[in-house]
């Protein structure tokens, strides 16, 4: 795929694949194009050239609204609607899809992320801690049980302990549900910990795509090697 903006090239001939039920991490510094690439999957960004397929179907042929309702999405800041209570936020996608019993789906999703509906469903977003807010955002993305979920630095703004807790919860949840996940992060540790495969991006190009373990063991480029060394993941 290629995507150019007025000033810069965000994606420069990128091609990659995510196996169903697995998790791929997109790692890179800001401006590397990782978020742009993520957004091509739910047509928030349209590539200038190239094709995107989700579940073997060209997204170009799909109505973007319907596509987004079938693809889960978790932004960095949670993006909860501040004027809706937790329950209403989590019910959002089931309601947009016109599913039966959105309340039940919302409750189930909340318990998946470890929040008791009784205690949390009636709260306003501002009454939650940062970690709880991200849990609600993940519940919202999963409430309609999509087969694919996109996560844009979902744990970036959390403190270390909360982040670790949430990473663990997400990892278990993803495996349990067998959902395909595309995770954008600038943290190689997080990528290696949560993802089956890691794609390192730099200036709109893919530097290396490899199994998490293989990447740390044998970096393909100087850039990746530096990245691995800085993260303290390399072989001693």
């Amino acid at each position, binding site marked *: 795929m290629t995507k150019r903006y007025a000033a810069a090239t965000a994606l420069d001939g990128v091609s990659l694949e995510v196996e169903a039920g697995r998790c791929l991490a997109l790692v890179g510094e800001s401006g590397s194009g990782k978020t742009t690439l993520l957004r091509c999957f739910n047509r928030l960004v349209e590539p200038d050239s190239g094709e995107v397929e989700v579940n073997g179907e060209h997204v170009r042929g799909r109505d973007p609204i319907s596509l987004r309702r079938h693809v889960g*999405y978790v932004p960095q800041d949670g993006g909860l609607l501040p004027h809706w209570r937790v329950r209403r936020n989590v019910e959002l996608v089931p309601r947009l899809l016109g599913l039966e019993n959105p309340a039940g789906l919302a409750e189930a999703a909340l318990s998946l992320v470890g929040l008791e509906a009784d205690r949390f469903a009636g709260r306003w977003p501002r009454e939650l801690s940062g970690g709880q807010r991200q849990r609600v955002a993940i519940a919202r993305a999963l409430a309609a049980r999509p087969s694919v979920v996109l996560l844009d630095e979902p744990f970036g703004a959390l403190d270390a302990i909360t982040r670790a807790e949430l990473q663990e919860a997400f990892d278990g949840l993803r495996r349990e549900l067998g959902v395909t996940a595309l995770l954008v992060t600038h943290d190689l540790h997080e990528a290696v910990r949560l993802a089956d495969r890691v794609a390192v991006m730099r200036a709109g190009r893919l530097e290396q795509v490899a199994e998490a373990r293989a990447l740390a063991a044998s970096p393909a480029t100087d850039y990746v090697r530096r990245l691995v060394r800085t993260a303290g993941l390399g072989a001693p």
Partner: protein
Amino acid sequence: MKARRRILLATLAAIAAIGAGAGQSRPIVVASKPFAESYLLGEMFAQLLEARGFVVERRLGLGATEIAFGALREDAIDVYPEYTGTGLLAILNERPVSDPRDVFDRVQREFEYRWGVRWLPPLGFQNTYAIAMRQDRARELGLRTLSDLARVAPRLQAGFTPDFIGREDGLPGLKRAYGLEFGGVRSLLQPVKYQALAEGEVDVIDGYSTDGQIARYSLTVLDDDRRFFPPYEAAALVGARLQREAPGAVLVLTELSGRLDEERMRRLNERVEVAGEEVPRVATDALSELGLVGAGRGAEAGAASAGAAGADARGGSARVGESESNEGSLIAYLWNRRAEILRLTLRHLLLVALSLAAAVTTAVPLGLLLERARGGAETVIRVIGLLQTIPGIALLAFMLPLLGIGVAPALAALYLYSLYPILRNTFTGVRDASPDAVAAARALGMTPLQVLRLVRLPLAAPVILAGIRTAAVINVGTATLAAFIGAGGLGDPIVAGLALADTRMILSGAIPAALLALVVDAVLGLVERAVKPGGLA
């Protein structure tokens, strides 16, 4: 009892009108400019017409020359008292002429030719500008004429009406004619001018030769020894429609021609301006003294007539006060006029509510539209913001040729003033509404319309409502200006009070207007809290 008499009188007038007014299609609209003499002459026209069986609608105190003449030209009014000098200089924009006959001939011919508007033969007195000083001060300086004044003027402070300072037949011409150069010139409005002179704040003012205030403050009028001021003969100015449709009424109005001399007029003005008598009563007395309203219509007729004036929508503003004296507490005065004040307040509120409702239904959708197409948004909003810089009275004057006088131009002006705050707040409110939430809503599959309806609008609602609240409070204040073009409301007593130098009357409009602004603000504050979605800090 009073109401019954009004109904009776109105019925009688209507019956008489069928006979005398022969096919009169609508009431004859009598107007005046907003100062005491004009009110009085207008009321005399009205009463005389009523006495001869015509149905009359009063628009007394309608507005200054541009507004009153503009309304006459558009046939929105039928007759009002005007001065030949004003016609020549302010309306025709011609150079001053000193012979009264020449002036009258000139304006008569020119008005007829250009607009089909007719000057009836003059009423018999001139009301020209008069340069006045306090008697003691004039004596002390030994001043009798304007030539005398020119010698000492550099040591004196003058206080002139803005009108006089700007007009060619006012200060600029006067300076040239006499070589006058004052130590300082301050712009003072009619009602404060005399006070300022009495208290020695200024030494010289402009007045009118038939001004009742000149007698009240026992001022010395300096003689215009070089005959600079052009003649200002008062006369009825009659619109084209009335001449065409009710020539009988025009004939009735000529009965006043040549009947009022300066002495009589000054005395009548004094009763209104100084003694604080009711305009309708003074007008009735004047007409009966002149033998124009029949015998047997003495004091009783005066009271009935005053009642009739009060029954008319605008007539209320011509009444100077409930009692003859200016004493008595303000609260008692307000209490006595409570029914009238309530009526004016409701009308005021109606003007504000209608214009605001219209503004909300256009500015909110426009704001949303501009937010979708942001390219030209700032330009559009700035252009509409420019409207805000047009002074209220000027905007009303612009409306006149388009919408005439009355409620329509007032609503239009108030509507235009309301647009900007609502538009600006809608646009920025929706644009800046929680960008994270908006982005997430979009990414999860809301349609643009759903994003607007479910996210942007609820989040922007408090900001939008704050804009509506601002517009409403500004509108309550601006709506007082509506009285200048005959739309009624709390501006009525303010305009009339300014014209008649009656502070209590001014306050009877200004105090309720201020309270109304506070109440409107408080109520919309509650609405603002109600529309604020839960969950926001």
